[in-house]
């Protein structure tokens, strides 16, 4: 085309000559050019070509623009994106459907290598700039919500003048789709509603109202997790509907589709919404009630042939009682639905968490009744299920409450929240958490009471105002201890109240005044108050535990409290220094030694390697137990260290001892399950872990998966047991479970996501290698594993179960030699689940190998020895 700048004639000169030539008659131009250019060939060429192109006719320009404009308007933004096309930093994979606001696509995030859903708004949706701004604002607010039951928004953006929302990609069905097969099972319906309510409660607390809760806006993921979608869009939709309604009076183009849209949304509207009043969070509670109603009986709560009929029904008519469809429905459930759908919002649940709590209580009662009536085996058989249902129905007829008297609670559950510092003084802040922790430690010896561990209450640090009901529901406890302290000079004053949340009453209120040098007595006094306040009966041994630490020096105790506080704040180096100081101040302080050992161990395992710190941890635990053999903490901490370092056999007696002291200690049950898993006692392991989760739903939730399910081939249950959070660790396990179920696309997706989140995590690397094997990219997979193996060596990683998984990945990549090398290392490092070695489907390719037999024999010998030692206990 045009020549380079250096060889181009001067533009000014060119223009001057061009204009002069143009003013001449066409026949005179040739002569003019030859003379004017003085033999400058380049200038002459340029000028001639321009003059040749000159014309009064501008059709070529008009034509180009006209056709282009035509193609723009004929293929507007609503044009579908085809698979493989680019959209912002996403690659369109397929079209998922069309919503009220635009097209929804499945796409891949090319940067983060994850699958996402992308909603592209239609041009029609972006007519009104005000609406768009509002939409943007709310969608952005919604994107800050972080809750497993709310669809995670990754990005709200605009690309090539098109607005879009990128969100997490969920595979599942909407409640609407689920309801096409008729009403849902009551328990399922409640479970779904509980999840919706907890999602809503978080949004409401953040000041966001959904405004359009309906069966179409709730997705039930394949594993049962519920997601609320379209947060923040509702208000925008409503605005659009206003347009529809306004248009109906003035425009004849008002069509059926628009009418349908209004009705679809109206069906779950609250009365105040139908009236156009100002809304608060309780509108969502009404809508959720209407959705729950429909899930239970399969019929929508309000019917009407036209929009106005429907609105009239919502305002005036009570829906048919659920008992007309299901005569044997628990009366509590009827009450819950009725209260949620109360026409007057003041009669509804005040907030979503209150509704969630009511449903959870009901659900627990239903489970309890189920257990009473049906043995776990029988529950699988349909005939028995029918019998059980009949039994439940009978109980309902007799009256639910009579069979389940509130006067006989099983074990009281207590959460002690971090005490609040009444003086804003950083120097004394450490007391808030650590004093609560000290009381928790004491109460952990009382078997008549289940106390939530410090790790569960840690998140209530710095919470200014607590809502007791909400906290109790979140922690699943019936009793709360709340306290505020003020330290002035040498005086410490602690105000306490013990709240029975279930019955909404304060059991006792007390002020403890001590001089600071008597700090140590505070925990004992609080513990004593709790015991008398709750009228607990202690065994003599328990009484001994509760009154113990009185020998410790004041200085050591304060250092201990500071160390515990730092540990909870993840400052492990600080915790180690302070707890070491405590053991120096008072070498006889057993609890300080126990926590020091834990700080060493955590520091070592989080920083890869540091074998010498494992050794220090072990020494500290031994010291603690030598000082006080009955202490639970060092027993549990040490057991974990034993299993991790390949001595599951030594973990078991420690845990049995801890459980003999308190049979309700969830962490001890979990650690026992962990050790049993390493030793191949899979069913026993599963039972312990499930019991632990039953006692304390959050126990080890972030750091350990219920692998016994995997090894027993119960993959669906395994997937269900995983928490919903999106850590690399959990994502790997999700992919791993799906891989076993042969759900390969999902498995690949989760492996990729895990690896994307943390490429240094052993499990994430293993998962990515498996993903590469699915893609037939064996060489890359092997390369990744070789690099992983090198890191394992360099950093001295001793996680035998993790190494076993690397062996499995090698086997899947057809490198049997490496698979066996890692397998051997894993067994030698203390992971010897012999029955699983024989049944592991991933090792099918190596089991016939001669090398495998020797490894299996070694595992078998240790497994048999382990089993024998167990039966002797």
């Amino acid at each position, binding site marked *: *085309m*045009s*020549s380079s700048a250096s*060889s181009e004639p001067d*533009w000014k000169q060119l223009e001057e000559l*061009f*204009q002069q030539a*143009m003013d001449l008659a066409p026949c005179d131009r040739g002569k003019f050019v030859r003379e004017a250019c003085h033999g400058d*060939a*380049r200038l002459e*060429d*340029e000028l001639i*070509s*321009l*003059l*040749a*192109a*000159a*014309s009064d006719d*501008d059709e*070529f*320009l*008009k034509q*180009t*623009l*006209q*056709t*282009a*404009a*035509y*193609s*723009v*308007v*004929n*293929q*507007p933004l*609503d044009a579908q994106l*085809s*698979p*493989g*096309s*680019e959209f912002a930093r996403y690659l369109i994979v397929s079209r998922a459907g069309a919503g009220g606001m635009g097209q929804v696509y499945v796409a891949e995030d090319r940067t983060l290598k994850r699958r996402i859903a992308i909603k592209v708004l*239609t*041009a*029609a949706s*972006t*007519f*009104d*700039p*005000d609406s*768009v701004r509002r939409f943007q604002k709310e969608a952005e607010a919604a994107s800050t919500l972080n809750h497993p039951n709310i669809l995670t928004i990754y990005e709200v953006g605009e690309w*090539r*003048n098109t607005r879009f929302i990128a969100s997490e990609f969920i595979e599942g069905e909407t409640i609407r789709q689920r309801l096409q097969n008729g009403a849902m099972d009551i328990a399922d319906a409640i479970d779904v509603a509980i999840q919706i309510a907890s999602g809503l409660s978080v949004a409401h607390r953040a000041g966001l109202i959904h405004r359009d809760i309906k069966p179409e806006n709730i997705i039930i993921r394949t594993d049962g997790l519920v997601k609320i979608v379209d947060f923040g869009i509702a208000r925008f939709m409503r605005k659009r509907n206003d*347009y529809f309604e306004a*248009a109906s009076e003035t*425009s004849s183009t*008002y*069509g059926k*589709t*628009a009418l349908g849209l209004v009705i679809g949304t109206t069906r779950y509207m609250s009365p105040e919404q139908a009236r156009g009043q100002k809304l608060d969070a309780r509108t969502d509670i009404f809508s959720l009630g209407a959705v729950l109603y429909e899930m239970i009986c399969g019929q929508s709560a309000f019917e009407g042939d036209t929009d106005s009929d429907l609105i009239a029904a919502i305002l005036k008519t009570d829906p048919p009682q659920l008992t007309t469809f299901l005569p044997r429905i628990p009366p509590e459930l009827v009450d819950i639905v009725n209260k949620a759908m109360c026409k007057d919002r003041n009669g509804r649940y005040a907030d979503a968490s209150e509704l969630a709590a009511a449903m959870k209580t009901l659900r627990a009662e239903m489970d309890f009744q189920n257990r009473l009536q049906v043995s776990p085996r029988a529950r699988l058989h349909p005939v028995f299920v029918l019998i059980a249902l009949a039994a439940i129905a009978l109980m309902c007829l007799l009256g639910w409450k009579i069979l389940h008297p509130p006067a006989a609670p099983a074990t009281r559950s207590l959460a002690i929240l971090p005490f609040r510092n009444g003086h804003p003084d950083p120097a004394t802040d450490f007391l808030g958490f650590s004093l609560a922790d000290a009381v928790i430690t004491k109460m952990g010896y009382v078997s008549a009471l289940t106390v939530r561990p410090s790790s569960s209450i840690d998140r209530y640090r710095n919470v200014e105002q607590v809502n007791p009901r909400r906290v109790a529901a979140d922690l699943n406890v019936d009793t709360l201890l709340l306290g505020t302290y003020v330290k002035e000079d040498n005086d410490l004053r602690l105000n306490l109240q013990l709240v029975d949340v279930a019955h909404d009453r304060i059991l006792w209120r007390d002020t403890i005044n001590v001089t600071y040098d008597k700090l140590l007595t505070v925990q004992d006094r609080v513990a004593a108050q709790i015991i008398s306040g709750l009228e607990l009966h202690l065994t003599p041994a328990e009484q001994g535990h509760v009154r113990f630490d009185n020998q410790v020096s004041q200085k050591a105790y304060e250092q201990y409290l500071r160390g515990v506080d730092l540990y909870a704040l993840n400052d492990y180096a600080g915790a180690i220094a302070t707890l070491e100081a405590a053991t120096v101040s008072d070498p006889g302080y057993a609890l300080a030694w126990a926590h020091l050992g834990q700080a060493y161990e955590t520091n070592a395992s989080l920083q890869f390697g540091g074998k010498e710190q494992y050794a220090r941890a072990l020494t500290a635990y031994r010291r603690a137990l030598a000082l006080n053999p009955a202490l639970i903490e060092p027993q549990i901490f040490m057991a974990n260290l034993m299993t991790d370092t390949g001595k599951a056999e030594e973990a078991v007696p420690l845990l049995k001892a801890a459980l003999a002291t308190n049979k309700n200690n969830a962490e001890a049950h979990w650690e026992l399950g962990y050790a049993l898993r390493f030793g191949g006692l899979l069913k026993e392991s599963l039972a312990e872990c499930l019991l632990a989760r039953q006692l304390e739903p959050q126990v080890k939730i972030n750091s350990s998966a219920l692998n016994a399910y995997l090894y027993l081939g119960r993959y669906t249950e395994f997937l269900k047991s995983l928490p919903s959070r999106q850590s690399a660790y959990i994502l790997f396990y999700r992919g791993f479970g799906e891989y076993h179920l042969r759900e390969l696309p999902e498995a690949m997706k989760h492996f990729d996501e895990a690896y994307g989140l943390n490429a240094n995590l052993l499990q994430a690397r293993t998962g990515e290698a498996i993903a590469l094997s699915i893609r037939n990219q064996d060489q890359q997979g092997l390369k990744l594993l070789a690099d992983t193996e090198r890191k394992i060596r360099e950093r001295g990683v001793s996680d035998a179960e993790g190494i076993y998984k690397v062996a499995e990945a090698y086997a899947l990549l057809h490198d049997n030699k490496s698979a066996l090398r890692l397998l051997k290392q894993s067994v030698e490092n203390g992971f010897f689940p012999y029955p699983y070695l024989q049944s592991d489907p991933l090792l099918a390719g190596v089991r016939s190998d001669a090398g495998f037999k020797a490894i299996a024999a070694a595992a078998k010998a240790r497994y048999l020895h382990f089993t024998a030692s167990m039966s002797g206990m």
Partner: protein
Amino acid sequence: MMNDLPMQPDVPADREQVTRLLHQWRDGDKQALNDLMPLVHRQLHSLAARCLSSERGNHTMRATALVNEAYLRLVTSDAGFQDRVHFFAVAARILRHILVDYARTQQRQKRGSGAEVLSLDEALEVGETAASELVDLDAALSRLAEKDPRKGEVVELIYFGGLTYDEAAEALKISAVTVHRELRMAKAYLRRELSGEAATAGSV
């Protein structure tokens, strides 16, 4: 989906805002232009998306009609001649961007989807050609503006904005004769560039 939507009323607040911004811009406020661009952009864009949905197959649709329509919707009736000219100057530039952006997307999608997509519809084929012609025109216009910014502006105003020579002269504060002269060279340049017959050094 779009066809089911009734036409929606324009927001009067926007109109006043646009007119006010035009005044401010005319009075030398550079920021006003920045504020004005997104408003005009949005209007043009939705117009482009909406116009032919109600008159499908209307081949006489012109780009400049979009700008006119946007003007009627965005500027209050009491705005003066100068405001109109300034508005069109802004709109022309924006429209050029919208059209070219869109054409590029089309091209990319065509490439991205590979050979599997067969053109079943003549309209799509037309769109394809129009897209590449428009992209070429845009590139040639940019090259022209680099050498001679005013020529680039004149072309934008008249062919993208639909201004008359007098209006373009007013917008650029030059005489109508100058507009005419600028345009005749600009057109020659563009036509030559687009016909692929540019002179190369040494050739006769």
